[in-house]
């Protein structure tokens, strides 16, 4: 079933694409700079289209079926988004064009900033960060800059709950901060005692994911924020789980000072097989001056006849740029399209149905799978993929068996605080029929685990590929192959 390597398809002398003939005189290039060998493939357009079409057929995507990958919010990616992002007036604008020629793009970005402010309860937003992880980096750099600006540069400690995603500690370390892990209590909340014990004059901030990675809304979130603020720290909100909060609560109202959004989760821009994402960051009023450069602002107010004039400006105490240009504009167009499609009421319904779907699945599965932190969940929940009477069956086996039933597995082995975890996020775009079908399969797998465990251990059996030898991949390290005909 494996598709050939590129070099096996390449034929000497074959051409895939031709350009118009040169219409100007030839210029000389110094010999010592000219490349001698260009070991690239020689293919024909049909070869290329077939190769990548055939490869695409080895993939599972949201378009194929249910994709309950927890913390990734694999909701349907609306087709209209793909159309609006490709309108030539958006797709072919150069980022350094004079502002007078990019008023359409700037107006869209300004509106998107404003709406993200309103959804999150913030005073300012940067659209520049390229992904959630870069949004986090932006947030922690803002925390650092804020304390430094106040002459408080000894504040270098970032508190991170043990349920947090690995990016949180990695980001803090990258920003030169010192990471301290906080225990969760037995209801999955931040342990207030542990939090208080770490509140001292070195506290820079707390990184809080709420709802957390167990899918639970922290029952003391306001108190948590108060404790951190009283100790002089800031509260960073990881907005990975914002899909549960749209129109339900504004993180800014809860005392969150900074939050990154994931346009590719909450606002339906495609995950693209692992990117591009987009990670705008919203901040409270006292942090607006520290946002990365540039942000979009109104330079001249409009009136009934004239649209306002928009421009790019640099905030007064900016942390600087986090990437080239202004951010992933193509993703902004998609997210803005999605917001327009839903409006105020529709955005709240997204969260309501996401939470309804998750609780419905939880109700259907809790008799077959142990749910260690079992209370009303938000948009996702975490079950254990193990049974004490069948110790050699693991979450991984359940995941692989799901593939045999044509379903993408949930996230497994995360969060780390649940053993053999299965993190299930159905999203609002799935129907009751799809949820019932998934629950039936999960219950059947639980029975198989008892009666025919080898079905799980040998899974997947019906997919084009079986389990892979990851040890061989890491020991032998084959990371490329030749791509040209001569090889």
């Amino acid at each position, binding site marked *: 079933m494996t598709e050939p390597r590129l070099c096996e398809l390449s034929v000497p002398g074959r051409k895939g694409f031709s350009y118009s003939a040169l219409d100007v005189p030839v210029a000389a290039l110094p010999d010592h700079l000219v490349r001698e060998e260009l*070991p690239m493939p020689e293919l024909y357009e049909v070869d290329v289209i077939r190769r990548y079409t055939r490869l695409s057929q080895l993939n599972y995507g949201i378009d194929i079926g249910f994709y309950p990958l927890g913390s990734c919010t694999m909701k349907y990616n609306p087709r209209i988004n793909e159309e609006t992002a490709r309108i030539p007036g958006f797709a072919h604008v150069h980022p350094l064009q004079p502002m007078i020629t990019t008023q359409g793009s700037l107006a869209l970005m300004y509106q998107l900033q404003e709406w993200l402010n309103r959804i999150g309860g913030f005073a300012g937003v940067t659209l520049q960060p390229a992904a959630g992880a870069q949004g986090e980096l932006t947030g922690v750099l803002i925390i650092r800059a804020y304390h430094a600006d106040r002459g408080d540069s000894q504040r270098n400690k970032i508190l991170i709950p043990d349920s947090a995603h690995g990016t949180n500690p990695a980001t*803090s370390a990258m920003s030169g901060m010192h990471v301290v892990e906080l225990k969760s209590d037995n209801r999955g909340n931040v342990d207030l005692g542990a939090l208080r014990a770490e509140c001292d004059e070195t506290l820079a901030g707390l990184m809080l994911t709420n709802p957390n990675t167990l899918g639970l809304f922290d029952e003391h979130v306001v108190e948590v924020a108060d404790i951190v603020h009283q100790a002089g720290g800031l509260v960073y909100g990881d907005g990975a789980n914002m899909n549960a909060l749209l129109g339900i609560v504004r993180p800014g109202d809860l005392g969150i000072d900074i939050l990154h959004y994931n346009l590719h989760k909450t606002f339906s821009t495609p995950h693209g097989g692992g990117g591009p994402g987009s990670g705008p960051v919203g901040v409270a009023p006292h942090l607006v001056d520290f946002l990365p450069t540039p942000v979009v602002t109104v330079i001249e107010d409009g009136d009934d006849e004239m649209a306002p004039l928009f421009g790019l400006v640099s905030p007064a105490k900016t942390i600087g740029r986090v990437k080239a*240009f202004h951010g992933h504009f193509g993703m902004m167009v998609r997210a803005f399209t999605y917001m327009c499609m839903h409006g105020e009421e529709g955005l*709240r319904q997204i969260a309501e149905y996401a939470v309804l779907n998750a609780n419905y699945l939880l109700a259907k599965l809790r008799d077959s799978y142990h749910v260690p932190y079992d209370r009303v969940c938000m948009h996702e929940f975490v079950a254990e993929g193990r049974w004490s009477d069948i110790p050699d069956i693991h979450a991984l086996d359940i995941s692989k068996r799901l593939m045999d039933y044509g379903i993408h597995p949930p996230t497994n082995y995360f969060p780390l605080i649940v053993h053999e975890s299965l993190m299930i996020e159905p999203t609002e775009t799935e129907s009751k029929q799809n949820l019932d079908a998934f629950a039936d399969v999960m219950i059947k797998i639980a029975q198989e685990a008892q009666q025919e465990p080898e079905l799980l251990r040998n899974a997947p059996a019906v997919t084009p590929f079986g389990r892979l030898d990851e040890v061989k991949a890491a020991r032998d*390290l084959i*990371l490329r192959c030749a791509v040209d005909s001569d090889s």
Partner: protein
Amino acid sequence: MYFPHTPTEREEMLAAIGVGQIDELFEAVPEQHRFPDLGLPPALSEMEILNEMEGLAWANDSANELPCFLGAGAYLHYIPAAVDSILRRGEFYTAYTPYQPEISQGTLQAIFDYQSLVTALTGMEVSNASHYDGATAAAEAVSMAIANFRGKRSKVILSPTLHPHYRETIHTYNPAGDITFDGEDSALNNPPEALIPLIDNQTALVIVQYPDFLGRIFDLTELADAVHEQGALLAVSVNPLALGLINPPGEFGADIVTGEGQTLGIPLAYGGPYLGIFTTREKLVRKMAGRLVGETVDNRGQRAYVLTLTAREQHIRREKATSNICTNQGLMALAATVYMSLLGKHGLKQVSSLCYHKAHYAARQIQSLNGYELWSETPFFNEFVIRCPTTVESINEHLLEHNILGGYDLGQDYPELTDHMLIAVTEMNSKEEIDDLVMVLAEVSDD
């Protein structure tokens, strides 16, 4: 809107959960903050949205309507129709990171193709699955070099003609001040060898751009040798399209090659999403951040692909990881993969030659005008610096009146290059467009 629930189904689901209304599911949210008014407008239909978006897009002047001579790190190139047709396949764009390799071989083998094509083009040994863009790839090169020396070397030399946005990003990524930067105030008309005296046994990395931000192509062999003599690493930030024509950095000994992959089949899109290329030598592979795909076999003996060396990454290393990057630019890497496969050996050489010859034609014509002067005699690829008779801003206004997008105003970044314009020419610019540009520039000089 995309939720299919009928009122009956909703009631059935609530009953199964054991609550009467959806609102009851949100009781953990503090009551005084629950269900705020957001102040957003009501929903629009798909038809209304398309209309609205077309209206906004219409308010832009786009580079495919006006002749465009603006580059400075992002370029208008022709994108063959085949590229977007593959990108629009839902099997690719609605998938996530290939954590489950049994049902993700499409994404995995496409990334393996990408790694293979990029290493072939740059002349390097390993490539990751990509970073966000050229700027963050350069910043990651700095982090990697510092990590490579485990804190024993802390000096990084930045060429002043590395893209200004990349240098700004590098500084933003290093807020703690434990890296010493040097080189940025070196004179612009100097060749890269001028950086050699700055390199010492504390130097972890020297980073230069090729062709540089001002379009020039320098032979970097001598610099590479000097860097290695001090035991340091050399990173080169490239425009990959130029490598269809000029020597790849792998040949003169670069240790890391980064670059902006936008030129490989990715639309301008007002600045993103683009593609951060990141390649290095085999011996440094474990210091490299970012996703990586390796070849292996499955339990049926079939050749297959899987994410590998994941122990370097944030989800395992947490605070000890050298970068927090999670994903790559998956779909953009796919665009570049299809573009490179389709153009291949012949097309890549052809497109980079077209850029080269057209840019040189434009430079010669402009140079012959009164009041305009080519700033440097150094060989260049498809971009060059012109000293102008007046401010770049006023020239660009004049060009825009004639529906031409002029070049980049270098005075914004380099005070000594006030009134200097960076002009980019690609295969998209016909001789007629270039002649029009020259004619309008002549008018400015005659005024």
